[in-house]
C-alpha cells in the first residue's frame, strides 16, 4: 500500500482536526503539518488537497479568507466553522469506532 493511499478518505478529517487545533492555516501549512506530525508517513498529494479543501468549503465546514503572510505574499487561509466542528466530532468518533473495530478483528481473527 502506498503512503498516499493510506490517506484515502481521512484527509477531510485530518484537515478539520488540524484547523480546530492549530487555528487558521493555509493549504501549504496544512500539507506540511500533516507530513511532519505523521513523521512523513502520510504524504499529502496537492492534486487532492485543494479539491478537498474546496469541497469542505462548499459544504460549509471550513471558511477561507485572504491574508498577508510575513513575507507580504497573499495567502488563502482556512478556518473551521461551527458546523465544521460538529462534523469533526462525528467523523472523529466514527473513525475511532471503525479503527477500533478493525483492530479488534485483526487481533481476534
Amino acid at each position, binding site marked *: 500500500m502506498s503512503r498516499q493511499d493510506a490517506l484515502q478518505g481521512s484527509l477531510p478529517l485530518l484537515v478539520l482536526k488540524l484547523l480546530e487545533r492549530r487555528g487558521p492555516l493555509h*493549504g*501549504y501549512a496544512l500539507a506540511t503539518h500533516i507530513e511532519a506530525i505523521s513523521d512523513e508517513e502520510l504524504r499529502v498529494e*496537492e492534486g487532492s488537497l*485543494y*479539491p478537498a479543501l*474546496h*469541497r469542505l468549503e462548499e459544504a460549509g465546514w471550513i471558511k477561507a479568507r485572504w491574508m498577508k503572510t510575513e513575507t507580504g505574499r497573499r*495567502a488563502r487561509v482556512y478556518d473551521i466553522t461551527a458546523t465544521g466542528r460538529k462534523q469533526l466530532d462525528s467523523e472523529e468518533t466514527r473513525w475511532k469506532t471503525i479503527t477500533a473495530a478493525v483492530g479488534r478483528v485483526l487481533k481476534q481473527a
Partner: protein
Amino acid sequence: MSWWSRLTNVFQSERLALDLDDEIQFHIEERIRERIASGMTREAAASEVARRFGNPLRLRETSRDVKLMPWLDSLVRDLNLGLRMLRKNAIVTIAAVVSLGFALGACVAAYSLVDALILRPLPVRDPDRLVYLAFTTFRPEQPEAETFNDPLFVSLRDASHDRVDLFAMSTQVMLPAIFESSGEKERVRTQYISGDAFDLLGVQGAIGRLIKPEDDVPATSIAVISHAFWISRFGGSPSAIGRRFTINNRAYQIAGVTDARFIGVEPGRPTSLWLPYASYNPRAFGNAQFNWFRILGRLKDDVRPEVAQSALQTVFTSFRRERQGLFDPGTSSTDRERLIHAPIYVRPAANGPSPLRHQFGRSLWILTVIAGLVLLIAGSNVGNLFLARAAAREREMALRLSIGAGRGRLIQQLLIESAIVAVAACALGLMFATVAAPSVVGMLTAPGDPVQLDLQMGWKLLGFAGGLALLTTLLFGITPALRASRLAPMTTLNTGGGRSLTRTGMFRPFVALQLAFGMVVLFVGGLLALSFARLSNVDPGFATSNVLLLDVETTRRIDGSQQRTAFFNLLDRLRLVPGVQDVAAAEYNPLGRAWTAFIRLPGKPNEAIETTMSPVSARFFETMRMPLVRGRTFEPKDMEANAAPSVVVNESFARRYFGEQMPVGRGFEGRFNMSNDTPTQYNIVGIVADARYDLRKPAAPTIFMPLRTSGTIHVRTAALPAALVTRLRAEISGTDSQFRVTSITTQSAVLDRTMLRERLLANLATFFAFVGLVLLAVGFYGVLSYSVVHRTREIGIRLALGAGPMRVIRTVVMDFGSVVLIGVLSGLAGGAYLSRFVEALLFDVQPQNLLSFALPLGTLLLMVLLAALLPALRAARVDPVIALRSE
C-alpha cells in the same frame, strides 16, 4: 457557501480562476523555498515540485468545478428543460405571458405616474427639510388655502427666522412674453419668486447668474429661465443671456439658466421662467387681501416641523386678529373667533406642493391598486396553469424523486419555468408601460396648460417591474412547485399518474382569489363609470354645443373706456360674420371660475349676502340659450357707461332672497368696485333659469351684471364651430382692429375639461375591469375544462349508472360552487372596504347603494356562467361507452 456567493462566482468566474491560481502558486512557491532551504538548487527544486503537482491547469479545473459546476450545470439544464416544456404548450405559454405582461405593464405605467407625481423628491438639496405652509379656510369647497399675501409673509418670515427660512414662490401662470428679437407674444409658464428662493432650494445655475436676495427691489429687471426652455427657445445658445423681453409692459433681461435637473417645484407643471417677486404687480405689496404666492421654507438643522409651526401659529393668529376688518362683513362673532384661530400647517414639501397632485393623486393611487388587482388575476391564471402543468407531470416528478432527485431540485426546476414566464412578461410589460404611461399623462392635460411629467423609464422602474415579476412568480409559482415536491412517489406511480379525485380541488385557492380580485375591480370600476355617467348627464342649464370661446387682447395700450367701446364694436362686427348666429361676451365662462361679492337687500341693511357675480354683455343669455323666466334680458343700452345699473338674476337668487315675490323691478345695494366706497343701487330687470357654474353642485344664487371692460367672446355658430375659426380670427385681427386672439376653444371642450378626472378614472377603471373580467373568464373556463377532461371516466360511470346530463353538469360545476361563493363574498367585502377611498371622487353615486353592488355582481356571475357553459356541455355530452373504454 451561500447561494449569493455562488451567484457572484458565476459572474466573476474570471476572478475565481485567478484566485485559484494564486492559491496554488503560493503553495508551489512555499514548497520550492523549503526544498532550497534543505539544500537543493532552485532548478532541481522547481522541477521536483512541478512533477509532484502534475498539471496545474487540471487542478484548477477540478477546484473550479467543485465551486461552480453542479449548480450552474443544473441551472442551465433546468433552463433548457423549462424552455422546452413551455414551447411544448406554446399557445398556453403565450397567453400566460401576454396576460401577465399586460397586467404588469399597467402596474408599471401606473407606478411611473405615481412616482413622477407623488413619490419622487424634488431634485434640490436636502428635499426632506423643505416645507410649505397651508391654513384652514372653513370653506367646504376649498378646505385649505396655500396662498399668502405680502404683509403676512413678511411677519411670518421675520418671526420664525431662527427655526425656518421662509421664501415665496407665486402660483404659476402662463404669461405672454414679448421677446425683443421677435416681437411676438409667447406664452411662457412663469413664476415670481423671492430673492432667496433658489439659494434656499439649493438650485445651481447652468450658466449666468440666478435670482438673488439683492433682486428683491422694485426696480429689478432680472429673469432666469429653465434649462428646458433655454434649449427649446434658444437652442441652448449662450447668447440667450442678456436677451430682453417684456411681460405685462415690464422689461426684463435674462441673466441665467438653472441647472438641467431643476424644472420647478411643481411636478407636472415645469416652470420656464422665474422673475423676482419684487417685479410683480406693485398693488400686491403691503396689501393683506392680495393672496398670490405660496410660502415654502427650509427647516433649520434639528428643528422639527411642529416647532416651526408653533412660532408661525402665534404670528398667524395675531395677524388675523389685527386685521379683522378684512373679514366678510356678515361674519358672526363665533365665526370671527374661529377664523382668527384658524390653524396654520407646516407640510412636508419634499416632492413639491402640487395642485395637480391634489387633483389626481388619489385617482392615480386607485388606478395603481386596480392595475395591481388585475395583475393578481393574471397571476392566478398563470398559477393555475402551472398547477395543471405540474399535475400532468406528476409521473415524471415521482419517477425522478424515486431515483433520488432532491426535492429542492424539483422546486428549483419548476420555479425556473415560472421565472422564464415572468422575465418574458416583464419585458413585454415594460414595453407596454413606455407607451401607456405617456398617453395617460396626455389625458391629464388641459389645453393651453400642458402637463409634463418626467416619467423616467430608468433603472428604478426596471427594478420595480423586475421586483413585481419576481413577486408574482414566487406567489403563483411556489404552490405548484411545493405541491409537486411533496408527492409520494409510491402512490403516484402506482395509481398511474394520479387519477385522484382531489385533483380539481387544487385549483380552488386561485379560482377564489381571482373571483375576489375580479369582484373588487368590477365593483370599483362600476362606481367610477356610474359616477362619470351621472356627471355627464347633468344638464348645465345652457347649450354647450356649437359655442366657440375666444379670448382676445389689445394689440397696444389703450385706456379702459376706449377699450370698452372698441370691444363692443368688435362684438357687433362678429355678429355679421356668415355662419354666426349670435355673439356675446362674459368675464367668466360658465363652468369657469366665478367671482363673489357682498350685497345688501332692501329691508335688511345689516345682513351682507355673498353671491356669485357674473358680468356679461347683451345677448349673453340668447347666445348661451339660457331661458328667460321673467322680465327682460340685457339690451345694448344697459351696457352704456352711464346707464342705470341694471342686473339680471337667476332663479336660485330670486327664490332664496325674494321667495314667492317676484323681484323684477326691485333692487339691492352692492359695492362691486373696490375703489368705490359708496354702495350703488342696482335694479333687477329680469330672471333667467339656473345654470350651473360647477357641474357637481346645484346652481348658486347668481347676479348677472353688465360687462365692465371686456371678456371672453362667446360665439354661437350654425354649424360645426371649427369651420368658422379662421374666418373669426381674420375678422378680429382685421386691418383696423385693435385686438388679436390669444386662445380659441369650444364650450364643449371646456365642459370636457371639468370632467377630466372623472373621465380618466372611468375610462381606465372600466378598461381594467373589462380586462380583469376577460382574464377571469378565460381562467375559469380553463379550470373547468381541465376538470371535465380529467373526470371523463368518472362522468362516464355516473352516466352509465343512470345519472341525467343535468345532474352531471351540476356535479362538475358545483365542484366550484362554494369557491365562487367565497370568492365573490370576499370580493364584495374588499370592494366595500376600498370604496371608502373612492367615495370622495364619486359624483351622485353611493357605494352602499344596492345598484352599486348588484351591477358588478350580476356581471361577474354572468361571466362565470358563460365561462362554465362550454365545459358543462362537454361534460353532458360524454359518451359513457367511449369514456370507459378509453381506460
